[in-house]
Each structure stands twice: as structure tokens, then as C-alpha cells.
């Protein structure tokens, strides 16, 4: 790949010398092509191609070629890492999972967008998307798609027992016990969430830990400074399983597994991302019209609510040959007009706050004003270049606490030691 690249460059040089001899500039040979690498956009229609044509119309002589990657986040990460570390310039603009931005910026793979993006251009986006975009005081990417952990609940079941969506996990457990005792339906589970050993577990465990009033990093860089409270967060999740409020198989569950279970009408509550709502409202859904959305519960004596944000940002390959145009494409795609088109056509949520009260968008997604309030309170996962190392070190510890191989306190203790050792080596 490496030698191929330099040989290709040599060839290009030779050709351009040749053409220079003919009195021709290679740049004017044809239109400039920007390559945009992104994950497949899910939803009823893909609005990306139309947006790119619009960008081309505004920038004559520029062609944008969209190339989609697999939907699997691990595969995308691997693709980018191999190509960026191999100094490939095969693409100009890329869609990044929000947890990679700091990592790619630290590695020197992203173009610093600060010269093109003034601070006021970021302000209309949700606060929890700005923090990852501006690691180390520079702008590395622009927020594009937003995600937040939410609590889905069965409106019919809660109404039947005159209950309101629970504000704390303690209340949620009480409600489940009450509903299940009265319903006498052994096929109805309480709350389902994601406990399989993968990134989703990190998200769910962090939400429980935050809800209990603990942080991942203290101001001085200490890991889990509120050790007892962090362990208390994991204890809550373990208790949900032991008491049967959550089925034991949540320890192997991901988003889709839990979404289907709740969608079949087999659980009172579900923790998931907002994408599931559209699927619950389809014509043949067993729970159509009986699903509500609420903030994730907090804890008595802890935080009021603690939901993790997620989503995607757009960044520019530092080795792009057209930084000016690539930055323009990122700004265009993250702009209000493009995000509105994304919100109307795709099943994904925009990062611009105003769109959640836009008349056209709300007509297509009546739940958007409610989702807006949840997103406003979302917290980003720790913004650090070592995020993937951090998460993959925490996952086995969290998993061990959920299945009871380690006590929550032990799991936090081991997590502290391992993460501390890891980060020490990076300074």
C-alpha cells in the first residue's frame, strides 16, 4: 500500500511533468472530486445523495462521491484506522462515531477545522456534541447526527395502574413489581437494557454510575474518584437481574434484541436510543400507540437523570488535497438546511436544537419536542483520545459485576487499577 502510493505519486509527477511540457496544468484537466465516506443511512429514504447534488450545484466544478461503509461501528473504525495510519488520501470527508473524534485528532489524522468554523457556528448544536468536537481547544469535527439514551415505557400499562413515568430507579422497580403482581403474566418482563460485553454495556453502566452521582474521571485525572458511588451504580444493575426485575439474559443483550422484546409487548420498560420509536409505531407493531418516552431515571440521593449521548460527527482527512472544499462540505452537511433534510428523510436525529421545534420536522416526528429536552440533558462519554482503550478495559469488569463473577466493588477496584496503569503509560 505504502510503496504503491509513492509509486503512484511518482507516476503522477511524471505525468504532470509530461503535461507541463505540453503547456497544460493537471488541475484543470477535470472537475475536482471529493470523496465522502459514511455509514449507510437507515430510514425510509436516504437524503444524502440529494444533499450532495445541492452542494455540487453551489460549487461548480466539484463532484462529491459518496462511498458507504458497513453499519458495524468496529468495521468502520478499522477501515479508517488502517487507511489513515497508512497515510491514504482515498477520501476527504468522513463520518465519525462521536467517541473517535478525540482519538483521531490526537493521532493527527484530522484536519484542524478551527480556521473555517467560528465558535458561533457550533453554538446551535446540543452542548454534549460540542465537547467531543472541540477536544484540546480546537475544532476537529462538526456534529451531524445526535443520539441519547432514553426510557421507553408502556403508556397503557402505566395508565392502567395510574402511574407516571418513574423519576428514579427505585420508583421504576416499585412500579414493575406492582404491575407484574397485578398482571400475573409470566411472559411480561420488567425493564430490558444492554448488558452484552460491548460498547453498549459501557454506555448502560456509565449511565447507572452517573445516576448514582459518580464520575469516571476526577478533575485531577483520578479514575472513579467516587469509588463507593461508582460501585453502587453497578450494584443497581446487578440487583435488577438478581431480583428478576430484568430478565437474566440482559447480560447478553444488545440494542436490537431488547428493542424486539419490548416491541413484542414483552416488557414494561426499555432503555434504548430514539431510533426505536419509529419502529414501535409501524402499522403491524404489537405496541403501536402504546409507547411513551421519558428521561432515564436518576437515583434517590444521586443525579436527577443521567443519559449518555451518542451519534456521529463529520471530519476532514488531514491529507485531503482540497481542505477548503472539504471543510465547506462538512459545514454544509452540518448546516440547518441539510440537517433538516436528514431529519425529514432519514430515521436519525439532527444535532441542531432548533430543528426539534421546526414545524415541518415536528409534523414528521411528533415526539421530537420531547426528545429535545432529553438530548439537552445528555452527557458525552469521557472525551479522551484513549476512549476505546478505556472502554474495552472497562467492559470485562462491568460484565463481571453484572453476571456476579466479581462484586461491584471488586469490579470498580480492578477497573481503577487497569485504567490507571493504561493511562500512566500514555503520558
Amino acid at each position, binding site marked *: 500500500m505504502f510503496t504503491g502510493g509513492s509509486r503512484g505519486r511518482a507516476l503522477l509527477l511524471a505525468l504532470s511533468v509530461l503535461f507541463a511540457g505540453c503547456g497544460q496544468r493537471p488541475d484543470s484537466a477535470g472537475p475536482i472530486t471529493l470523496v465522502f465516506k459514511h455509514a449507510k443511512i437507515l430510514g425510509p429514504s436516504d437524503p444524502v445523495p440529494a444533499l450532495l447534488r445541492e452542494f455540487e450545484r453551489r460549487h461548480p466544478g466539484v463532484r462529491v462521491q459518496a462511498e458507504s461503509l458497513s453499519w458495524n461501528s468496529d468495521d468502520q*473504525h478499522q477501515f479508517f484506522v488502517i487507511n489513515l495510519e497508512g497515510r491514504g488520501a482515498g477520501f476527504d470527508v468522513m463520518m465519525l462515531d462521536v467517541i473517535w473524534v478525540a482519538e483521531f485528532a490526537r493521532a493527527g489524522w484530522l484536519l484542524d477545522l478551527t480556521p473555517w468554523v467560528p465558535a458561533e457556528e457550533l453554538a446551535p448544536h446540543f452542548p454534549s456534541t460540542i465537547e467531543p468536537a472541540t477536544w484540546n481547544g480546537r475544532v476537529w469535527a462538526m456534529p451531524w447526527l445526535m443520539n441519547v439514551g432514553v426510557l421507553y415505557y408502556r403508556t397503557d400499562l402505566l395508565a392502567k395502574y395510574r402511574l407516571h413515568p418513574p423519576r428514579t430507579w427505585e420508583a421504576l422497580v416499585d412500579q414493575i413489581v406492582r404491575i407484574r403482581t397485578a398482571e400475573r403474566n409470566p411472559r411480561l418482563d420488567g425493564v430490558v437494557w444492554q448488558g452484552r460485553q460491548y460498547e453498549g454495556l459501557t454506555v448502560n453502566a456509565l449511565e447507572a454510575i452517573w445516576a448514582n452521582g459518580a464520575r469516571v474521571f476526577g478533575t485531577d485525572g483520578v479514575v472513579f474518584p467516587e469509588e463507593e458511588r461508582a460501585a453502587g451504580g453497578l450494584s443497581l444493575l446487578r440487583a435488577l437481574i438478581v431480583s428478576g426485575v430484568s430478565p437474566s439474559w440482559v447480560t447478553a443483550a444488545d440494542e436490537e434484541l431488547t428493542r424486539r422484546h419490548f416491541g413484542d409487548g414483552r416488557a414494561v420498560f426499555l432503555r434504548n436510543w430514539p431510533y426505536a420509536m419509529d419502529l414501535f409505531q409501524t402499522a403491524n407493531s404489537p405496541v403501536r400507540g402504546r409507547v411513551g418516552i421519558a428521561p432515564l431515571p436518576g437515583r434517590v440521593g444521586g443525579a436527577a437523570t443521567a443519559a449518555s449521548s451518542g451519534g456521529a460527527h463529520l471530519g476532514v482527512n488531514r491529507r485531503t488535497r482540497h481542505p477548503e472544499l472539504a471543510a465547506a462540505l462538512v459545514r454544509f452537511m452540518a448546516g440547518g438546511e441539510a440537517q433538516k433534510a436528514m431529519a425529514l428523510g432519514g430515521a436519525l436525529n439532527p444535532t441542531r436544537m432548533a430543528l426539534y421545534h421546526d414545524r415541518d420536522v415536528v409534523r414528521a416526528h411528533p415526539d421530537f419536542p420531547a426528545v429535545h429536552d432529553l438530548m439537552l440533558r445528555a452527557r458525552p462519554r469521557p472525551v479522551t483520545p484513549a476512549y476505546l482503550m478505556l472502554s*474495552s478495559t472497562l467492559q470485562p469488569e462491568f460484565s463481571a459485576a453484572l*453476571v456476579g463473577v466479581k462484586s461491584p466493588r471488586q469490579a470498580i477496584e480492578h477497573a481503577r487499577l487497569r485504567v490507571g496503569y493504561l493511562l500512566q*503509560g500514555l503520558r
Partner: protein
Amino acid sequence: MTGRERDDARAGRLMLAPALIALAVLAAWPGLWVLWLSLQRRIPVFGIERFVGPSHYAFLAVDPRFWNAVQVTLIFTFISVALEFLLGIGVALALQGQQRGRRTAVALLLLPWALPSVVTGRMFEWLYHPSAGLLNFLLGGQAINWLGEPMLALPALIVADVWRTMPFVALLCYARVLTIAPDIYEAARVDGAGAVATVRDITLPLLRRVLMIALLFRTLDALRAFDLMFVLTGGGPANATETLTVYAYRSLFQTLQLGFGAAIGVVVFALVMLVAWGYLRAMAHQEEAPA
């Protein structure tokens, strides 16, 4: 050595050269590169790149996650290969005794072996599905947590692996069984040997060489097991199914600790070479021993 012989030897070396060069480029060079990488601390994200000698290996020696992965890999290899052989030989013998529909049986047997492993993984994901899975349904609507319970997850993966690769062993054995001359069995029958004695004293000894080769292939494959864990459990719960290759993948491609990941890769390589060497020696001994 005559001049002619010398010429022959030179021509021989010349003809071997392309194969040797290909081996050197495709196997030896990347192997040496990985070994060299494993002696460095190399984390591109943080711009870290320095020689650290064998310190990754020293860390692995006391790393509980590594020893857990070694244990998982060895248990997985031993049990799945043993089961594949018991079932594979059984199936081959059953095919031998079958009168009708052998062709259909062989075709069906090939199916699991021919499926891409990710497809197999997805299929077992549905079989093991806690609330909608066929397995729990057949067990009378139980909600057994096949992939989320540390004691069950590894056995569940072993079953999937056995289903997938048992046909390989069965077909190899069956092919060998077909070449056993019928008169040997006839002679045995005339001598009054029963069915058990025939299998024990005739079929199995004749299968020995092909079994050794199948054993070599299967063991080396199982030691590098990756895809089923990756698709079904991600190495969890609590690392109960994290094999050495999954640990290496996480270090190399997910967290980009290239030197450290390479060190795990070297350990897998050494393990595989050791086992291969052991098998090849055992096979050589057999060749020498009178049949």
C-alpha cells in the same frame, strides 16, 4: 557426486527457488515483522514508537486477562476437537453402514461446513435467543441465558463450532472408509469377528493416518478460534469466551496498541507451531512403526 548429479542438484535448487522466495515473502517476512513489532511500544494515536525489548512478554506473564484467554483457548480447543472426532467418526461409520440415500446424506453433511462462519454465528444467535430462540422453545419455554451466563457461554460456542466442523472430520473419515477393500471385512466375518471387533481392529487402525491429519488441521484451527466468539458474545460475559485471538484483535485493531497486540499474536503463533511440531513428530513415529 558426478557432474551430472551436480547439474541436477543445481537445477533442483533453481526450481525450488520460486517456492522458497514466495514462502519467504509471504510467511517469513511478515512473521519477522510481527516479532520485531512485539518488541516495541507502538501506539500511533499517541505518537508513541520506541523499542522496549521483551517487556510486553513480561507483562503478559502476569496479566490475568491473558492467562484467562489462554485457558479459554485451551478448553475450547480440547473439548471441541474431541467432540468433533467422536461425532465425526460416528457419522462416517453410520454412512458406511447406510444402504440408501448416501448421496443426500453427504450433501446435507457438507452444508454446515460450506456456510460462511458469520452466517453460522447469526444462525446460532437466533437458536440461542433467550425469548424467541428455538432451543428454549424446545425446552418448554424456558428462558435459559445461553450466551449471557459465564458457565454456559463457552459450552454454547463449543456446540456451534462442533456443528460447523464435525462434517470436515466425518467426510475425511468417510472417504478413507470407502477405500477399505470389502474382502478385509469379509475375511473378518469368516473369522467370526463381531461388529465392535471389526470397527476396533480393522476400521479404526486403517483410519489412523487420516485421523492424525484431520486432528492436526482441526487443532490448529481451534487454537485460532475467533469468528464465533466475535459474532456471538464479543468475548463476554466477563471474558468467559475471550480467546487469545479475540484479545489480540482487541489490542491490535480496536485499541491500536500495535506492539502489545503483536506480542499476543506471537504467543498464538508459538503455540500453534509447538502443537504442529508435536503432531508431525507423532506422525513421523507412526510411519516408522510397523503397521
